[in-house]
């Protein structure tokens, strides 16, 4: 399984990487700290799912969704939990939206649900 973890926060990328690795030790995890890096990682590594933050430098998560939201399963994980943002993300193709701070188990269950329906 290939996963891209896209968040400008190094702390958050480490947190999510640990959560994913505990459940899927064999998973290949690629990191992105900006919107453009997310798109580059998508093109280079064809992930099964992208964990995507919203507020990132250069391109935001919404910009990323506009470019690739319909092409790859994306789970948005963001502190920006206002209803308008969630609706916009889902309209652009996000399979689900988890508001930070999150429960690690919920992240895993949501990833499994997304992969199961892919």
């Amino acid at each position, binding site marked *: 399984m290939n996963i891209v973890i896209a968040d400008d*926060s190094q*702390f958050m990328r480490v947190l999510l990487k640990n959560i994913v690795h505990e459940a899927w030790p064999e998973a290949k995890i690629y990191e992105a700290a900006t919107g453009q890096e997310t798109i580059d990682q998508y093109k280079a590594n064809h992930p099964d799912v992208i964990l995507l933050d919203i*507020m990132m430098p250069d391109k935001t998560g919404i910009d990323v969704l506009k470019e690739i939201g319909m092409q790859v399963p994306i789970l948005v994980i963001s*502190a920006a939990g*206002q209803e*308008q943002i969630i609706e916009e993300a889902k309209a652009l193709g996000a399979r689900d939206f988890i*508001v*930070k*701070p999150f*429960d690690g188990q919920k992240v895993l269950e949501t990833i499994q649900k997304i992969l199961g329906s892919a």
Partner: protein
Amino acid sequence: MTIDPQLLNDIARRATKSSSRALSLLIGQEVAIKTTQATYLSLDKLVDLIRSREGSHVVAFSQLISGVKGAALLLMSPTDALHLVDSLMKRPMGTTKELGDIERSAIRETLNILSNSQLTALAQDLGVTINMLPPELISPEHIAHVLDYLAAHRGETTEIIVFETSMVVAAQESQVTMFIAFDAELAGIINSKEG
């Protein structure tokens, strides 16, 4: 523009509950709200208010860029910052001795999560979506410069609305204080919802 102080504080209290719940979930420990208040004051007074928080040296800062303009700041003492990082990184208390890259990232993310939780609560209350930039860490002596910059890019009003929240992590006896300063246009939004 005037606003009912009781109304303002009611709104701030709901927003504050949201951020204290967020901090509790983030660090996996009980968090108590020590102070919550909302006031109408000038930027100069805000700088004085922040400076009066003695011992607060670690400062995370973010700009509110749409919906309502403003800024969010997270203040804590160096000791409390190290304790907070221990909790965030699930390390035994006392492990973290200095703030390296990932530790600073953890503090920035804490402001991101706590302030966004308040903004989400406000959005539910008032129907306004407020976006903010990713936080940065700044030194306390730069607070005035940052706020001066914001003042120069504001409208004509000289007053701002400030939500102040102090939270205590009981197990550590450590405290974090968050200020969210909103441009006075928030008063218009509140009044129009209540009118």
